[in-house]
């Protein structure tokens, strides 16, 4: 049941109506927990047990850590939590990968021994919910979080369906403090949530899905396309992955808003980044901050000299790449970003903080680098990666000169979205005066609200004639031009 499918709309409407009808908070939480389990089981009911097992392990560990007075006991329980969580993630996500690589190595060594490859599906959202539940116990261990007051609160947090499958990765320290608030739909929540949901849905069904039709054949058979066509295919994928993933995040945050919870922002106009470090402050923010807080800093961060900092960056990004999937291509993608982060740090250190590259040039270079890194990320294997890069760099004329006209309006839409988002970002950062400067949105029935967790949110409205025209046309555009087959989100496979 994916967010852009008609089934989900029915599910969401029924849930909101039911939340409205139930009077007590306990009743609403029970209903939400039931709905979340139903949502997850709708994909494959057997893996609901795995979700509850991971949640249960971390609940027990969290309680033991909080109850223990001895630091060694606390440490033992947090290690238990981390090892158990990573073992489950490793078995379901990486067992085939490591067994396959082991078999390849054994074959090279001339050994006839073969490790059997386990046949299993990757449980949906496992990378996300394992990280989420791990952060719960680690935060308790660090004394940065009190354990959840009740199993109900904890289970609602771990199974919360909007962000269960593909993030944002919500930490317990963000979610649990909200558990006391009254949930259920209100006019204000519905308006804010529906606005975000509509923006996310637009990114997914009007931009990402149609662009998949351009990018997929090019990455599937790059030998059929000329270098120039592959550049366009790469641009299509660059926009597709952003709109697919940030669209999902917007929809998840929007659904949570409609229910009554705030989720953290996951994207902030990432293709406007002036360097690769800034890119990671704008792209998949909840993952990059998770890796920073639970991997990079514990590894030593930048506290032990330049060489160790570069090594820590490389390790963090390599593992970040591996988190995306069991493939050397993802490791290579992470490695490239890690190397770029280290290089950027070294260059910045050499040139000094005051050195500034002209912003348009910095954005262009960063975007080009990010685009080229999507090549190993999207390619099925290294052979395809090599072939695509060769054709891109040599502008190989052999192959079809296909100019997908659909790409250009999609590029324009994303560029417009980035420009509007950056303008709002700048205005909000200026404080109340800046927000006041956004009054031009009001005739369109829209406004910007600040949110301590979700950042700022553009709320659409139909209170004015231009607003009604805008929202009406927007909905008609989705009805008329959306891709109809509800295609899964890219990050579902991670």
């Amino acid at each position, binding site marked *: 049941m994916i967010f852009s499918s*008609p089934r989900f709309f029915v599910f969401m409407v029924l849930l909101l109506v039911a939340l409205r009808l139930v009077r007590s908070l306990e009743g609403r939480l029970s209903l939400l927990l039931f709905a979340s389990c139903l949502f997850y089981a709708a994909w494959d009911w057997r893996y609901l047990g795995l979700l509850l097992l991971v949640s249960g392990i971390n609940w027990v560990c969290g309680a033991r850590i909080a109850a223990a007075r001895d630091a060694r006991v606390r440490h033992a329980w947090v290690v238990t939590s981390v090892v158990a969580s990573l073992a489950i993630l490793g078995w379901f996500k990486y067992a085939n990968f490591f067994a396959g690589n082991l078999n390849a190595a054994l074959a090279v060594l001339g050994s006839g021994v073969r490790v059997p490859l386990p046949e299993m599906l990757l449980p949906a959202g496992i990378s996300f919910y394992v990280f989420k539940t791990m952060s719960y116990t680690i935060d308790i261990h660090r004394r940065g979080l009190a354990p959840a007051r009740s199993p109900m609160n904890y289970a609602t947090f771990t199974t919360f369906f909007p962000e269960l499958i593909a993030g944002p990765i919500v930490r317990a320290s963000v979610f649990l403090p909200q558990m006391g608030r009254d949930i259920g739909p209100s006019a204000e929540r519905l308006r804010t949530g529906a606005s975000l949901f509509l923006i996310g849905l637009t990114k997914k069904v009007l931009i990402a899905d149609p662009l998949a*039709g351009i990018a997929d054949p090019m990455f599937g058979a790059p030998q*059929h396309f000329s270098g120039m066509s592959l550049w366009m295919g790469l641009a299509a994928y660059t926009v597709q992955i952003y709109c697919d993933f940030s669209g999902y995040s917007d929809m998840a945050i929007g659904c949570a808003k409609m229910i009554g919870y705030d989720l953290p922002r996951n994207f902030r106009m990432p293709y406007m980044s002036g360097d690769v470090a800034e890119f990671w402050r704008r792209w998949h923010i909840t993952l990059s901050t998770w890796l920073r807080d639970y991997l990079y800093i514990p590894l030593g961060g930048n506290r032990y000299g330049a060489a160790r900092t570069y090594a820590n960056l490389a390790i963090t990004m390599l593992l970040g790449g591996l988190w995306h999937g069991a493939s050397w291509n993802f490791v290579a993608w992470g490695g490239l970003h890690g190397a770029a982060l280290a290089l950027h740090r070294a260059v910045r250190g050499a040139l000094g903080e005051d050195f500034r590259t002209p912003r348009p040039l910095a954005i262009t270079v960063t975007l080009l680098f990010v685009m080229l890194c999507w090549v190993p990320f999207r390619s099925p294997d290294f052979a395809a990666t090599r072939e695509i890069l060769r054709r891109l760099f040599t502008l190989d004329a052999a192959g*079809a000169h296909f100019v*997908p006209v659909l790409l250009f309006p999609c590029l324009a839409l994303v560029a417009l979205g980035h420009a509007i988002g950056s303008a709002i970002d700048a205005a909000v950062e200026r404080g109340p005066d800046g927000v006041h400067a956004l009054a031009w949105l009001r005739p369109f029935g829209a406004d910007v609200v600040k949110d301590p967790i979700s950042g700022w949110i553009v709320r659409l409205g139909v209170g004015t004639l231009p607003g009604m025209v805008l929202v009406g*046309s927007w909905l008609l555009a989705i009805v008329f031009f959306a891709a109809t087959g509800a295609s899964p989100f890219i990050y579902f496979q991670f």
Partner: protein
Amino acid sequence: MKPEDVARHARTAVPLRTGAPWQRALARVVLAAVLVLPLWELGLRRLCFAPMEVVPGLGSILAPGVEIRWAIEGDGASQWNAAGVRGAAMPDPQAPSVLVRGDSFTEALQLDDDDTFPVVLAAGLRAAGLPLPVLNAGASGQSLPDYLERAASDRERFRVAWTVVQVRDDDLERAAWDESRTHFARAADGSLRLEPVAPPPPARIGALLRPLTNRSALFGYGRMRALEFARAARAEPPLFSATTARAAPAPRRDYPIEDEVSLLNAAWQGRVTVLYLAVFDPERPREPASDTERRLFAACAAQGGSCVNLRESFPEFAARWEAPYGFANSNWNTGHMNAAGHRAAGALLARELVKTLAP
């Protein structure tokens, strides 16, 4: 004016916003609809306008005398007449003609008239001294059994000198044996026969809305989209399933291609050419892509039938890194035949028909 006068005036002044909130909201909705819908109607009329009409004996055909627009994939304008044939003018029933039957690939709404293969074929025949009109009776969603079912009535309606039947793999396989529509079946003696199935009566709601959907691109395209959404919803995987890691592929059914070719030749007394639209792979332009393709041409050769394979043009396409399918606003080598594909198909057919029809 004294302050108390100002206050009194403020109390008695007529507010700028009149009416209850719901009345104002309704006024906004109406005004927005008045502003937005005509613009959408204009835009969609340029993008996709293909009203259908039900004609007794012909079934559902593109509305005669209306300019059909299709720019979702490709960009084409066409007119269709009351005989269900592409072109504004009714064909002369007494003039000997070449009739082309096929599905949406022959219908070719994605292209203007001059770019379609029947027009290219007509030009090729004319150039060879055979000025036969070529009637394009392509209709989206039809398949080989539909063409066979219409063979007799085609001969009554037109003076058909020759028939061209355009097929793809599916027309010889799944679609030809789909029991929900006219399909092939085995007779008791084991021979192949046609099993006619009357099309379901048009849905009442569809019939009621037809005047609206036929006049408005907004409603016509909206209806088409609603059907697409419904189809996509039906195709969604079942909920609460226990999916297996790797589902075994369904066993491939063995279709009697040879018998189908034989039935086809019999239906038109051998006066038929099969145009086969092969799958294009630029790396293997000469290699048949399916067993069905191999069997079709083997049967054709064995039975002395006339068959044309678009594959014959594929080496040239591959040399130019061009695909016979797909458009700039859709995808490369995917979807319907583009103008280059139609040109190639028309030229191959002209060569075949000149050879066959030349006195």
